């Protein structure tokens, strides 16, 4: 077992959940042998908001989520909860979770997580730049003598 911190694990699990299923499949085409602890299951999560953004919680509506849990042949367990209904997406996310806890963390990070991180950063930058172009720059016109 590697010494994985909860923060690291949270961070890559979020990254995997947000990844496009097709992209994750390209980066991890072949799945290592695994046994199911929980087969991929499609369900929902009730998304909550807060009144006035910071007040008491209320139920906003649900989103689709797919989850699964599996065990690699070396006994490492991987979990996944990912947005949407793609069972392959959840499976791959759980496999990466397991791989990150066993041998070869650097390789998994370099070949799967690093590209996902870079592409996500690029997407966010692109959106931020488009938003910045629509930011209003007020100027005041001075009228009259004083």
């Amino acid at each position, binding site marked *: 077992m590697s010494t994985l911190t909860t923060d690291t694990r949270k961070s890559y699990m979020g990254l995997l959940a947000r990844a496009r299923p097709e992209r994750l499949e390209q980066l991890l085409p072949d799945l290592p042998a695994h046994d199911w602890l929980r087969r991929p299951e499609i*369900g929902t*999560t009730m998304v909550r908001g807060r009144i006035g953004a*910071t007040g008491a919680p209320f139920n906003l509506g649900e989103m689709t989520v797919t989850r699964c849990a599996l065990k690699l042949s070396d006994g490492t367990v991987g979990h996944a909860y990912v947005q949407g209904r793609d069972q392959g997406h959840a499976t791959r996310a759980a496999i990466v979770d397991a791989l990150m806890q066993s041998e070869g963390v650097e390789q998994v990070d370099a070949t799967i997580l690093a590209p996902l991180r870079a592409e996500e950063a690029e997407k966010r930058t692109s959106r931020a730049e488009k938003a910045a172009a629509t930011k209003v720059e007020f100027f005041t016109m001075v009228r009259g003598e004083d």
Partner: protein
Amino acid sequence: MYVATKGGERAIDAAHQWLSDERRGDRSVPELSVAQIREQMALAVNRVMAEGSLYDPELAALAIKQARGDLIEAVFLIRAYRTTLPRFGASVPVETDRMDIIRRISATFKDAPGGQILGPTFDYTHRLLDFKLMADGEASEALRKEAEAVVAPHILQLLDQDGLMEPLSDGDETPPDLTREPLEMPADRPLRLQALARGDEGFVLSMAYSTQRGYGRTHAFVGELRIGTCAVEMEVPELGFAVEIGEIELTECETVNQFTGSKSEPPQFTRGYGLVLGQSERKSISMSLVDRALRWEELGEDNVGVPAQDAEFVLYHCDNIQATGFLEHIKLPHYVDFQSELELIRKLRREAADAQVKEAAE
């Protein structure tokens, strides 16, 4: 009275087959894909997600295709599908403060920290039909400008710091859920917001408009309207901590409303709140106006007897699936019901005619 009748099966099958044929339309026109609907009819997809109360753009696009563009029928399909899914849990409340913003405007402060970001808006367009879209014109690429990370605190927090804003209660109680328990009166604010968030956009809009026209006026300013994506986190019991399970697009509106104060509270501004799945600023502004109007009692305002102040009226009529279900059922066979009505009216007529004859004889 309900009686089983048989004999319509073949007609029903043929009707559904024709429906499928009509859905496809003229075969010489290329078929729409679900991905095309998802990408190019995004605001219809957003509306179906919001009122279907299920965030899944692909499913909403499929529902729109299946429903031939009838959005309420599409919402119906989504609601029905949702009931087949198990619920894994509830999210940690989303932090709209940390939203990845694409649009953020304030009608109250010109120089709000973080600025006014217009985003991809219809505002300021001339509402003239663009015939270039009819030809195969190239879409224009969005302009870009080097961006720093947007730091955009909620604008109402600025007023909050000065004590001019009604304070928010920040309890962490589990909110009521109308998808699990029947909606009952009196409904507290979390329950009202859940009902409004999935309510029909047209209905909520009209209710909000009625308050602007004087039926329960609340003098709302849009303190802030923001659209963007928010991370959704959920506690996962088998892990023992919360993980991000994805991100969703949200529209949030906070209104600032007048309040003259009461015995216990000094004059201050009060709030209306709207939060909607997907991009829907009309709905979120409407929601915050109606939310504010429904708060008359807790703020010690007069009940002037207008529809938007009547929680029972608003909440029991804002759901378009309940409404259409009850409305449309009257077109289904009521042969026996109507037979008894027919007999009754004939009997009444007979009695009236007999009475007339008797009167004439006397």
